[in-house]
């Protein structure tokens, strides 16, 4: 499986659910380099999931542009695939059929499709379940099938919308570790939306904190930790504490009117900024 990432360049992005409604976010800038794992953290309602849907091409922005390697993004594509909070597998299909459904849409020949599906199932260690009905799998296994369904498309970018929040702690930790290690091994980009600080520290190279209404990116942190990352590692704990402090200060920003706090945005890095 040969996957490569993309350089992401988002300029002046804005979104309103209705033409006269308040913007969910506006004039948002974001850059991410090839193969980077980016986490967007924020409370419910700050617009982070909407942002992810727009990056996936599932929603159209009301303003701004997005480019992946100089290609303007205007709709969904199998090159940037999203994993949702729930696996949303198709229950009338077996595991292998679920994994290969995207290849089927793309008109892949059956033999090549089977080879790619087998490879993706091996990646998520579900090769023994190819012929199992997805309804017979545990929640963690179903989420692995969803991961394989995304990986089989050889995406340049994998977008994760709180994908492990419904899982138990052990399964969640295992999947967090696995997704990061697969992404690093295959070289594709990750954008993870989460409200779990630990998840951001364990999975991301860089974490952005989003807050306010309309939503804005108020903090940015590099997460320069070695792999494999362990929750109890002091460096992980220290990073977690930093992010948590920033998260709390972001919550205070969210409580105040956005236009009265234009200087709250932390611009530790030039790659992310907010122009209110």
């Amino acid at each position, binding site marked *: 499986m040969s996957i490569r990432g993309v350089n992401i360049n988002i300029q002046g992005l804005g979104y309103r659910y209705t033409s006269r409604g308040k913007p969910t976010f506006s004039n948002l800038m974001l850059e991410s380099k090839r193969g980077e794992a980016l986490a967007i953290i924020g409370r419910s309602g700050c617009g982070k999931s909407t942002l992810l849907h727009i990056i996936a091409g599932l929603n159209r922005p009301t303003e701004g542009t997005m480019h992946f390697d100089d290609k303007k993004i205007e709709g969904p594509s199998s090159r940037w695939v999203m994993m*949702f909070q729930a696996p949303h597998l198709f229950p009338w299909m077996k595991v292998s059929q679920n994994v290969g459904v995207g290849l089927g849409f793309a008109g892949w020949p059956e033999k090549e499709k089977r080879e790619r599906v087998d490879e993706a199932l091996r990646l998520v260690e579900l090769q*023994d379940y190819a012929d199992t009905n997805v309804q017979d799998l545990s929640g963690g296994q179903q989420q692995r099938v969803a991961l394989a369904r995304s990986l089989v498309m050889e995406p340049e970018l994998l977008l994760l919308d709180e994908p492990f929040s419904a899982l138990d702690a052990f399964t969640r930790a295992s999947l967090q570790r696995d997704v990061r290690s697969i992404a690093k091994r295959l070289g594709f980009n990750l954008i993870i939306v989460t409200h779990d600080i630990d998840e951001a520290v364990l999975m991301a190279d860089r974490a952005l904190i989003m807050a306010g209404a309309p939503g804005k990116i108020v903090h940015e942190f590099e997460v320069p930790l070695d792999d494999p990352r362990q929750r109890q590692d002091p460096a992980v704990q220290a990073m977690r504490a930093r992010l948590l402090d920033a998260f709390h200060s972001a919550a205070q920003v969210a409580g105040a009117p956005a236009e009265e706090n234009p200087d709250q945005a932390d611009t530790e890095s030039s790659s992310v900024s907010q122009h209110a």
Partner: protein
Amino acid sequence: MSNDAAPGAAAAAAGLTGTRTSRAAEAAGRGVVNFSLGLLILAAFWWLGGYMIAMNPQTQSFAGFGLVQTLQSFPELWQLGKLQKAIVASGYRLGGGMLIAIAIGVPIGIIMGRSKRFRDLSNSAFQFLRMISPLSWMPIAVFVFKAWDDSIIFLIAIASVWPVIFSTAAGLSKVDPAWFKVARNLGATPLQMLTRIILPAISFDIFTGIRLALGVAWVVLVPAELLGVTSGLGYAIKDARETLAYDQLTAMVLTIGVIGYALDTICALLIKRFSWHRGDA
């Protein structure tokens, strides 16, 4: 890497399937016993009723309604070709009407399920039309269509289209909207969305609607054939009554029951085959 994907679990899943299979076999065995017993009881009552009619001098001339006489009339009906002709004629009308109902009902049901605007707009009109007795369309059908066959096909279609529409729409409204999002995300075209996501997702509901529609169509078919036409099971009943051939009349009624039951069983098997809901299989 993972810990929740132990190969042993695959064997556990296979074990689960094995247990389910043995339970299904047990249920099927029970079903056969209940089916046979129910029919035997019905036959016993029929035989008893026929015996009493035959023993009573005042009702003796109606002895043809009895079980034995009815069964004895089948070879003659077959040799004369009456039975085959009636079944073919009725089958043609039923098939034609049902095909039209499905061809119209499924797409309308899908649009209804997908579009709230269409659902709101069409609801009152559809509910109004649905409540009109199908046979009351007969004078209009005769006026519009030149052939009696076409009129009956129209009556069957208009009677059976509603269950197909409403069942399809109800099925679609229950579909997880995230499936559409996932499919779009994986590059599904609108046609692929229809054929690979929507239709498999609601096939259970479509076949349930067809099963209900078939029941309605079968009920409408016989009275419709009592009017005007000179073929079909309804006509054969009318003809037998007029010639006082009560054994043949009852044989036709029995044929209607057997065919109706067989069609319903086929629909039930299709529902089971296409159902992905746990507990339906």
